[in-house]
């Protein structure tokens, strides 16, 4: 059956939409957090005064190292934990007094949390059954979502008989079949191997765009966050370090933590800053007129242009460098290149294999476009 047909059917057989749509019309699927804090026994603030708005239909990622409070925040949105301070609004409605089973929110758990005593189809139909939806409709909707996620052939199996990727799909189906306003995903792909993970990332993204539900995705994997998200919130120690569209956060990190957590980066302390030139350990660097003041300069490795031969005197920031380390990674090569005693990480696409691979000890020219130098406050 074609995806679009199934999808249409799912929507047609969904009388619940109207029923849950009691909030402001355009707010369906929006999440608002106002001053959310959660202090664990022992005084540790897992989540510390978070204000955040997640837009309807957005793929939003909470990214951060383990213990940064991202899972606690997700659990508060689900209703498993109550904030010690602050307000949560989902689809414009206050959630303080609303228990998890009354929230139009479904979770995909990290461990999948499939019911071992139920079959795949029973697992998927569980939420519908609990809401008292008749078995004929339940069947139709579970069949629909199973077809959409290509797990129909496992309907009668027990979760124990499935592979990790199949369980993941079942867990996703079990959440999506309820057509929640918000889907919460707690590191759902972390138990899978790299290839399957990449496949499921794309699938998850397609599914989210199709169904138009708000997805809040928790991960510690920056690559995953970059691939999937519309917007990212980078968290550290219970606080939001930066929130914004993926490209913004990557290209214009607000601080050193974000710069280093999201992708690779070269951070150079800025000794002095006058007009459009900053003084760094590797020498003076021309920067863009639009650059704001900052204590550090950040340069992404892929934005460093390497070349053979002497540096071009006409270029803005051209240096002579020596390759200290070379790692061939197939599609690209990663170099440690030393300029005036400062080692930078540079990423070079292996555009052609012939003269593009330098060996340690080789002299290279290094060019950095002024527009690619980002000044960050701390």
């Amino acid at each position, binding site marked *: 059956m074609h995806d679009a047909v199934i999808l249409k059917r799912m929507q047609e057989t969904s009388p619940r939409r109207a029923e849950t749509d009691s909030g402001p019309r355009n707010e369906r699927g929006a999440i608002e957090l106002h001053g959310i804090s959660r202090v664990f026994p022992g005084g540790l603030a897992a989540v510390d005064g978070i204000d955040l708005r997640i837009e309807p239909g957005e793929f939003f990622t909470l990214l951060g190292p383990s213990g940064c409070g991202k899972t606690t925040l997700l659990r508060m949105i*689900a209703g*498993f934990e109550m904030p010690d301070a602050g307000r949560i609004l989902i689809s414009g409605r206050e959630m303080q007094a609303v228990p*998890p*089973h009354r929230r139009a929110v479904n979770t995909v758990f990290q461990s999948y949390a499939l019911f*071992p005593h139920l079959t795949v189809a029973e697992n998927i139909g*569980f939420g519908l059954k609990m809401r008292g939806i008749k078995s004929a409709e339940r069947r139709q909707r579970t069949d629909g979502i199973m077809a959409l996620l290509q797990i129909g052939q496992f309907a009668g199996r027990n979760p124990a008989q499935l592979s990790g990727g199949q369980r993941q799909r079942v867990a996703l189906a079990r959440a999506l079949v309820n057509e929640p306003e918000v889907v919460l995903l707690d590191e759902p792909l972390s138990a899978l191997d790299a290839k399957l993970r990449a496949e499921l990332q794309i699938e998850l993204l397609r599914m989210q765009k199709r169904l138009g539900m708000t997805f809040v995705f928790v991960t510690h994997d920056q690559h995953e966050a970059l691939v999937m998200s519309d917007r990212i919130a980078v968290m550290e120690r219970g606080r939001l370090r930066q929130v914004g569209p993926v490209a913004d956060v990557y290209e214009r990190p607000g601080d050193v933590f974000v710069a280093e957590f999201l992708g690779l980066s070269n951070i150079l302390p800025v000794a002095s800053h006058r007009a459009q030139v900053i003084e760094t350990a590797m020498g003076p660097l021309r920067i863009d007129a639009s650059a704001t003041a900052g204590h550090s300069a950040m340069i992404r490795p892929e934005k460093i242009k390497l070349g053979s031969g002497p540096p071009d005197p006409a270029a803005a920031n051209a240096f002579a460098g020596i390759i200290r380390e070379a790692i061939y990674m197939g599609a690209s090569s990663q170099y440690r290149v030393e300029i005036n005693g400062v080692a930078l990480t540079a990423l070079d696409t292996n555009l052609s294999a012939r003269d593009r691979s330098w060996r340690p000890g080789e002299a290279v020219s290094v060019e950095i476009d002024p527009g690619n130098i980002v000044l960050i406050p701390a």
Partner: protein
Amino acid sequence: MTAEAAIPARRGMAWRAEDFARRFRLWITAGPGLAWIVLFLIIPSAILLAIGFFSIGDYGNPRLPLTLEPLREVAGYSILGWSPGNITTILRSLLQAVSATVLTILLAYPVVFFIISRPPALRPLLLLFVILPSWTNQVVRTYAWMELLGPRSGLSHLAQALGFIPAHLGLLPGVFAMQVGLTYNYLPYMVVPLYAAAEKLDWTLVEAGRDLYASGQKLFWHTVFPQTMSGLLSGIILVAIPAFGDYVVPTLLGGGRSMMIGSLIASQFTETPNWPYGAALTIFMLVFTCAGLAVFRVLSRRFGGTGAMM
């Protein structure tokens, strides 16, 4: 082809020194236990079962020729014709066992969930309090209940005041006292396996249930209860089987009007000796219990996964 050829070759060398040593070690370690079981369980049981097919001697002793008469007697046929006495006793025992099992289940769930809701360091101690009484002799414990339910006890005074029993009477003997005794004695055997299952309960499944719109009773029945199923099945086996054949409680608390199968069997070997009949009753109990276990095996496969103890 080569693999197929290799297997008989290896089998042919089965008595190499290292194989011999391995077998020797196996027998040394398993042997004594095996001998104990054969000597003190299998052989005596076989003798007892065999007695069930002998005729009755003048002193109730077994004698030849072999006959099915004792088994017919279990079914209710005697020289005076058929009477439902035995069947009634068996059914009464069964009812008592089922009722005591249900009561232990109803008591054990709150106890177990109380214990696992305490801090982990405190749990073994609380569990110990449940198990501790079973370290004393069952007869002693049952005698204690005779005191507690006797005519001069506080409980009896209360029951008298409320008009449940006439003045100067105790709460025993009778069905009530027997249920109290059985439930009390077998509660630990329900609590322990249930605790084992409940302690390793996967609470994310409960969260998943809440996430999927279940609450209250629905949440318990759909997410908690199935996870305790293996412990529950083990507990039922541990309680129902011994309660079915219990001898001490019916004798001390049940009184004469409610003969149980345990007492019936015991009396065939003591007061009114009739060994073949006693043995035949035992055979019946054994078959009955095995049939019950077989049903449970099917149930535990279906619900408990690897659970139960079979």
